[in-house]
């Protein structure tokens, strides 16, 4: 079984937590597991030497360029929300930033996954997307991760959450399934055509869910929810068994602390 990881970061995120991730990945991953980093902007030269199984690839996506050319200049596509309301008889306008509508900020993940398909070895069975705010805790090999991978007839494994959009810090793509590339390409279409702006939220986790549900319900294709007991937990990632090998530093507080918190193992979604 052959698998690789893909992630993305820019220099700011590399300095913040990305370098730690790469160093720990190099230390704990078995050497046959490759990690492809789609790097947005200039990367430090030292990144080339952090691991023999780590490949730094510049973000070179004509599709992402097209998306940015069409929509990248729009403040609304970067999360600006404008509300008109009445207060004490006065008509007021409120300008606010809302991450759920920051299509640009969260566009790098799907386009990085899409770009990586043209660079990864052709004989891979699985491609794992991971957010780069990941800590690696102990040695892992492909056989340790197989339980988190989709079955033969499934396109992707994901972390579903109760009454919320999925946690897309981890996605496991089945590269041997003929519908997987169609699924990824469909997500990319949603971005560069502008269809994304017709949905209730514009971040990638929401979009992966929207397209997954279409593939499941209309095309009768299959996916694997690997949340298990974590389904009802706010921090689903570390409640799925993935926490044996990894810790996902979700949100600014965990990134600052460099670890998830004890209550994350029990706290429910709501």
């Amino acid at each position, binding site marked *: 079984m052959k698998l690789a990881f893909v992630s993305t970061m820019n220099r700011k995120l590399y300095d913040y937590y990305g370098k730690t991730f790469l160093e720990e990945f190099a230390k704990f991953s078995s050497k046959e597991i490759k990690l492809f980093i789609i790097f947005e902007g200039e990367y430090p*030269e030292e990144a*080339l030497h952090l691991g023999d*199984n780590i490949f730094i690839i510049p973000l070179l996506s004509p599709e992402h360029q097209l998306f940015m050319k069409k929509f990248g200049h729009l403040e609304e596509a970067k999360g600006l929300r404008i509300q008109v309301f009445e207060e004490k008889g006065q008509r007021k306008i409120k300008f606010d930033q809302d991450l759920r509508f920051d299509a640009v900020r969260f566009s790098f993940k799907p386009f990085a996954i899409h770009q990586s398909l*043209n660079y990864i*070895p*052709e*004989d891979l069975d699985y491609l794992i997307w991971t957010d780069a705010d990941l800590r690696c805790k102990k040695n892992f090999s492909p056989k340790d991760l197989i339980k988190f991978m989709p079955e033969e007839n499934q396109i992707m494994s994901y972390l579903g959450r109760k009454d919320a959009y999925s946690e897309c810090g981890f996605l496991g793509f089945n590269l041997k399934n003929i519908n997987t590339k169609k699924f990824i390409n469909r997500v990319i279409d949603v971005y560069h055509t502008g269809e994304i702006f017709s949905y209730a939220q514009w971040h990638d986790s929401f979009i992966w869910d929207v397209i997954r549900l279409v593939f499941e319900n209309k095309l009768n294709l299959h996916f694997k929810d690997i949340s298990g007991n974590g389904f009802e937990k706010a921090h689903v990632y570390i409640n799925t068994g993935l926490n044996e090998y990894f810790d996902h530093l979700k949100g600014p507080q965990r990134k600052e602390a460099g670890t998830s918190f004890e209550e994350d193992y029990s706290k429910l979604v709501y």
Partner: protein
Amino acid sequence: MQTVAYYTDHYVNQLVTQFFSKSQNLDYKKISEYKKNDNIKFCSYGILRGTGDAINSSVEYIYIDHGFFKSSNRNFNKDKRTSINELTGYFRVIKNDLYFNKNYTSSDKTRFNNLRIPLKDLNQNGEFILMSEPSEHVLNYLKIPTWKEETLSLIQKYSDKKIVIHNKFSELSLDDLIQKAFAFVSCQSTAAFKSIAEGVPAYFTHESLSKFGSVKNIEDRYLNHDLLFAAANSQWQLKEFFSDEFKSYLDNINC
């Protein structure tokens, strides 16, 4: 002999050499660390930023550059800068030469056929000889500053056809010109391979390629398809660097 891949400060060089070195478990060093050592086989991409000098001083080397067909999508701008949109195309991987393997030629058609490039019959209506000028970098590197004048004279020695000169900053596209060409002459241009596929015979002045088409035979108009098959067997996408087929190729060129 140990092979060492060297990188420059250019991101394309870094990407290609990174894939080559890490896929083949080779040492990976910055070009500034290069020191002439006859026990080291030098490997890098391109001839700029110090790699050309290192190649010149190396007994053995592996040279990587854009492929003969379906190379990555590049735009040559008027300010003489090249912009790159993606790097998913093919790269040629050559031993002890910049342009073609001298000691390994495979004319197996499989990889060429996989490119799905149609081979047109000989163009019977060619109006002129299309002469493709090397880039300034190539002229300097190969020390052929008077290539244009010398090649014009050479062609005129063997043909009285009209000659049209093209370089990568010309207004007219090479693709359009090839459609009306009688023959294509270059030093070592990869556009020659496209020319042959389009039914226009190609001739070279560089010693590595002139055995596949010499200007003195320009009126013979022979479409050398074996050259295309051999070229397709010497070019690889980055994702193929991980494959057993690529490893076999490196064994075949004695890398």
